[in-house]
């Protein structure tokens, strides 16, 4: 079926298809998303790198992370040290995916949402800030931060 769509049709279909790039579906239970997105396994080391990374996750722009030697950490969100003791993996996942589901006024950006956003820069349009795999990596890492 797919192979038979002509080039013209494929080009025409592109602008319609790209914003609708479907995100892995998830189910909210209480204040958590208990099941991993897309059934993926997270990687703790990749998650740690994402949280620190200044382009991709850039979480430390707002949060104090678990490593006090990291220079210039933010003071806007709660410190991430101990978050794995305060919240379970499903609760952390929901707060990364879309914290506004809990607090409509939240400053915490939605990392896995593409709808209801305005004036998104062209290069980020139609894409979530983090992929399902990246969310799972970060969830795995944060879940290990049990000490305050």
């Amino acid at each position: 079926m797919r192979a038979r769509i002509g080039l013209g049709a494929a080009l025409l279909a592109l602008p319609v298809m790209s914003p609708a790039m479907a995100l892995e579906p998830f189910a909210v239970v209480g204040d958590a998303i208990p099941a991993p997105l897309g059934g993926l396994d997270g990687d703790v080391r990749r998650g740690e790198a994402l949280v620190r990374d200044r382009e991709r996750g850039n979480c430390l722009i707002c949060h104090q992370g678990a490593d006090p030697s990291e220079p210039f950490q933010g003071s806007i969100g709660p410190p991430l040290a101990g978050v794995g003791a305060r919240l379970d993996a499903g609760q952390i996942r929901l707060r990364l995916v879309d914290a506004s589901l809990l607090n409509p006024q939240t400053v915490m950006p939605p990392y896995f949402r593409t709808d209801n956003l305005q004036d998104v820069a062209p290069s980020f349009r139609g894409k979530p800030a983090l992929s399902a795999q990246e969310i799972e990596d970060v969830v795995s890492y944060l879940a290990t931060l049990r000490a305050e």
Partner: protein
Amino acid sequence: MAAIGFVVALACLILQTSGVLAEIRSGSDFLSPELRRQQADETRNPGFFWVEQGRELFTRKPAGEGQACIGCHAQPQQSLRSAATRYPQIDAAAGRLLNLEGRIEQCRVERQGQPAFGYETPELLSLTAYLASLSRGLPMQVRTDGPAQPFYEAGKAFFERRQGQLNLSCQQCHDGLVGQKLRGDTISHGAGTGYPAYRLEWNDVGSLHRRLRACSLGVRATQFEAGGPEYLALELYLASRATGLPVETPAMRR
């Protein structure tokens, strides 16, 4: 009794107004003491090179028939003192909102018969920095009523609306999070009263609109054109929020 009531009401009103004024603080208040000292020292603040260049351009006769700016604006220290405090403003003839850059370009094209410098060119930045420096220390006082009102409303709506992939509004940072650390920066009220400013990150002087583009990029939102209608309206709103704050151009920023 009534008189006492009146006096009390008046006192409350004064307290309230001064409360509002005290609420919005200059970006300079959030700088390190060292950077603030450097900003205040004309020999160590690089922004004053641009002011000097602007002063020179102001007296330079353009090619052809046109006059120098000083031909129309004699004694700018007096005649243009406080001009910057009233921008952006509506140009009555065109019905357009002009900021200081826009007014300079208008004079250049319509009165000097020269091609526009272009936003963010060294010439326009220098002239803007020079003219704004003539208002140093004077309180901002833009008009937001009458024909300016729709622009003010548009700027306010822009300021309050969440935007970008990170879904943040200007207001969330510059009202709600003032004083908090965003990496190495301390978030201010976003008053913008020191622009054009010398930013260490740019290693250069830049316009307020260039700074706005940086904030838009920060939340991964569309960066609007410098000098375009979106940031002009926003500039009017920021200036009205900054009513009463002194002009500090050329400021220094991180």
